[in-house]
């Protein structure tokens, strides 16, 4: 089943569509506020984004992932196709494993980032922030591979937080606790197949659940029944945004401008400039952007994406970043007060050679008190690790809480 029909010209009567979880979401959406995520209605916050954030760090939260752009890649050449598409070595992502990836244009500039799920031997799902079918089909020419966008054929939920494994166990998914980080398993569920991957966008223990849209409602119901005694909460996009910044995960369109959408060519970024050099494998003889990235590696990058630990408690959203002599060297792309790390944190883009771990910087913060604007030049330091990275994220089997 498709989640909605765009084959009819009448689609214009609705500018946005309900997700397959909509009825359940609407019943819980006490704020009665909806946002748009491409084709779907999405919930910014059901009740209170702070409480939903803490569910993700303390119990578990459920987020509707259905609007995420999804593709299915199958056929004898699926692996070689993917290996030329992305910068990392996909031969290492075995069946039942998931690989975070970036893909570039010929200039070595990042088109998008996303996750590749090796569902079965030679059968992959690629999830991306932006629409990618044009680029994927350009790349598929000459390969014996089938590439389709199936966003509307798959319903998906993220279940994130320390009690998430306990909830799945309660749902009687056999050996779900044996899934290691970036692993996945398929389960028989209510007469269909449920795929569970140990992945997420929160930097904590968590899973993502994939099912056909016809079974979306029953999945939601079973999940919430199982989670009742484990503090399960629906989670909106505002809470997820806080969770991903704490985890140090970047977001296309926010922390970098995707190359296919960028008019001013200097505003695109390479994987190195996004701190994703570890995803570039030059041992592969051919992949998109290889030549440009080799040159960049030899000659140096223009920018660095850094994690900043900023003094004081005033969130540094949209702030300029300066070196210690007061020269403007960059800007903040995402910022928040981290309730879990108890730090004032930010992701920022700075010009190289700035951006070394431990480097001191200044951040120009504008903040408001009872409508009056204030400005603070706050001290900041570049840190290497994610602001939130608990051991439970990696423990297998995970604890119940």
């Amino acid at each position, binding site marked *: 089943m498709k989640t909605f029909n765009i084959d009819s010209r009448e*689609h*214009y009567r609705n500018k946005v569509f309900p997700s397959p979880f909509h009825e359940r979401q609407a019943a819980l959406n006490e704020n009665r506020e909806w946002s748009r995520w491409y084709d779907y209605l999405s919930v910014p916050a059901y009740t209170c984004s702070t409480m939903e954030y803490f569910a993700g760090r303390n119990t578990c939260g459920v987020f509707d992932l259905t609007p995420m752009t999804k593709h299915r890649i199958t056929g004898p050449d699926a692996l070689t196709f993917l290996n030329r598409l992305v910068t990392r070595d996909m031969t290492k992502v075995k069946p039942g494993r998931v690989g975070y990836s970036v893909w570039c244009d010929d200039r070595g500039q990042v088109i998008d980032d996303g996750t590749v799920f090796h569902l079965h031997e030679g059968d992959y799902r690629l999830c991306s922030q932006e*629409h990618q079918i*044009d680029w994927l089909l350009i790349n598929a020419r000459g390969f014996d591979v089938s590439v389709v966008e199936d966003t509307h054929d798959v319903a998906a939920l993220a279940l994130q937080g320390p009690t998430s494994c306990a909830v799945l166990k309660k749902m009687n998914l056999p050996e779900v606790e044996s899934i290691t980080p970036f692993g996945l398993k398929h389960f028989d569920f209510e007469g269909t197949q449920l795929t569970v991957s140990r992945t997420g966008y929160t930097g904590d223990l968590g899973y993502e659940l994939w099912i056909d849209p016809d079974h979306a409602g029953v999945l939601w119901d079973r999940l919430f029944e199982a989670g009742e005694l484990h503090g399960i909460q629906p989670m909106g996009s505002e809470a997820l945004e806080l969770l991903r910044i704490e985890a140090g995960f970047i977001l296309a369109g926010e922390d970098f401008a995707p190359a296919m959408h960028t008019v001013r060519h200097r505003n695109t970024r390479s994987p190195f400039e996004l701190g994703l050099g570890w995803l570039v494998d030059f041992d592969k003889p051919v992949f998109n952007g290889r030549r440009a990235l080799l040159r960049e590696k030899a000659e140096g990058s223009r920018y660095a994406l850094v994690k900043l630990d900023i003094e004081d408690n005033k969130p540094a959203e949209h702030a300029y970043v300066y070196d210690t002599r007061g020269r403007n060297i960059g800007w903040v792309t995402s910022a928040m007060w981290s309730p879990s790390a108890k730090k004032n944190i930010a992701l920022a883009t700075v010009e190289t050679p700035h951006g070394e771990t431990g480097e001191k910087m200044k951040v120009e913060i504008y903040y408001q008190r009872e409508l009056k604007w204030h400005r603070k030049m706050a001290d900041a330091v570049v840190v290497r690790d994610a602001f939130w990275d608990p051991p439970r994220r990696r423990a297998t089997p995970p604890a119940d809480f």
Partner: protein
Amino acid sequence: MKKHDAIVIGAGHNGITNAAFLAKAGMDVLLVEKNEWIGGAAVSRNLHEDWIYSNCSYVCSLLRPEIYRALDLARYGLQVVPYGGSVTMTEDGDYLASYTDEDASRRELMRHSPRDADATHRFERDIMRQCRFIRQFLLRTAPDPTSFKPRDLMELLHIGREFWALGEETIYDTMRFYTMSIAEFLDEYFEHPLIKASHCGSGIIGSAMGVMSPGTAYVLLHHAMGDVDGSAGAWGFARGGMGAITQAMHGCFADHGGTTLTGSGVAQILVKNGQVSGVALDNGDEHHADIVVSNMTLPRTFLECMDPRDLRPEFLEKCRNFKIRGSSGKLNIALEGMPKFTALKGNRELMKADMHLIDSVERLERAYDDWKDGTWSRDPYIDMLIPSLTDPTMAPPGKHFMSVFVQYVPPKIRGRDWTDADRDGFRDTVLGQIEDYAPGFRDLIAHVEVRTPRELENEVGLTEGNIFQGELTMDQLLFNRPIPGYAQYRGPVKGLWMCGSSNHPGGGVMAAPGANAAREILADRRKPNTVPEGWLDD
């Protein structure tokens, strides 16, 4: 007789803009116009009962916002209101729509081709890269590449720097854009014939080239580089019709002490001892000034309104060779009610949109074949709007004004002049075409104004009926527009200036040639500059 500081010939949008900037600098300016009314091709006229037509140009996007602001056109009554979307209807009763809502537009593309829906991002990015490059030269005078004057060298350097700043990929693309056909260019992005056809129109409007002719990719850019309130590529209606633009410009001109004479055209631009001395009008009156600015087309100015003995033969030969070929016509229709397009099934949003009746690139190319044969297209390209659905001033409530731009329409019918019978035949072709898509349409018609290149030349003064005052091809752009060596708005005779769309940066209701020419004149006369520079788009 009183001597003016300057005489501007032709009260179209460029002429009035030029006159207004000169008047704002304190000059005593006389504006002369052959018609009883002002506006040129940006005009609103009442020809039937309570209907107002935008008789020639019909939508607004290219009008430079810097000029809008500098002439304070809002204060003089101009309002530009964006309209929503576009739709391309097919013969089999389907359509491809573009909506004001980005997601709905994407889904509409997906309905025809999911891949093309995504490719649209790449397409729009590449178009916008080129538009940003071109836009910054709109309110600048093109340099003379053969001159060694510091100013020309600086300007050449500026172009070079900006070109280099485009980045490797876009530099290559730029050369391709100026030389490719729109059909070839679209093939690099899209697979679906209807999606390609829907983008093709912008590549040929106003041009006597086919969708498969080299150079038409640039014409698409020319239509995409405008904006409404910073919304790039958007188009809008001037409230009250396109005449509202020239009326507001004229309000500014008059407010700064300008004088306007209508109802008698210029018979000849007077030259004494190698210097212009004024103009002689058709009614026998003479008016004098040391500066004469022509907003007429290049051929009309030099081949019709000047004594050839005052000009060099080589220059005259280049004026004769200037490519200014008529390719379009227009029907302005008063409707007693709302037409019903079968394909739209009551979609009100698309009734307000820009409507086209075309299926494929090939069908468009065949329409051009008829032009080459010296006749109007039997299956023409139509760009059609119902402004009265957006603008309540255009028609009585419940009744409608429909603007129908038609291409291709040749300046001559197989080498001979148009006759009234030809004009009626052309009208029936177009009305029949619309009737095919909207049965019962002809029964709604209360009045039709038909404009072939003959009417456009005789009434508006557009040579051969070319709406851009000259083809927008590489050989006639930037420092080659209108002809090499004369791209700085300066005519071949002392005191003679050119401010029409024959000059850089070309046609469309942009007002940039008029403004740029005023800046040059003021600099030449050491007057304070009143003409704005272009806003930075960094």
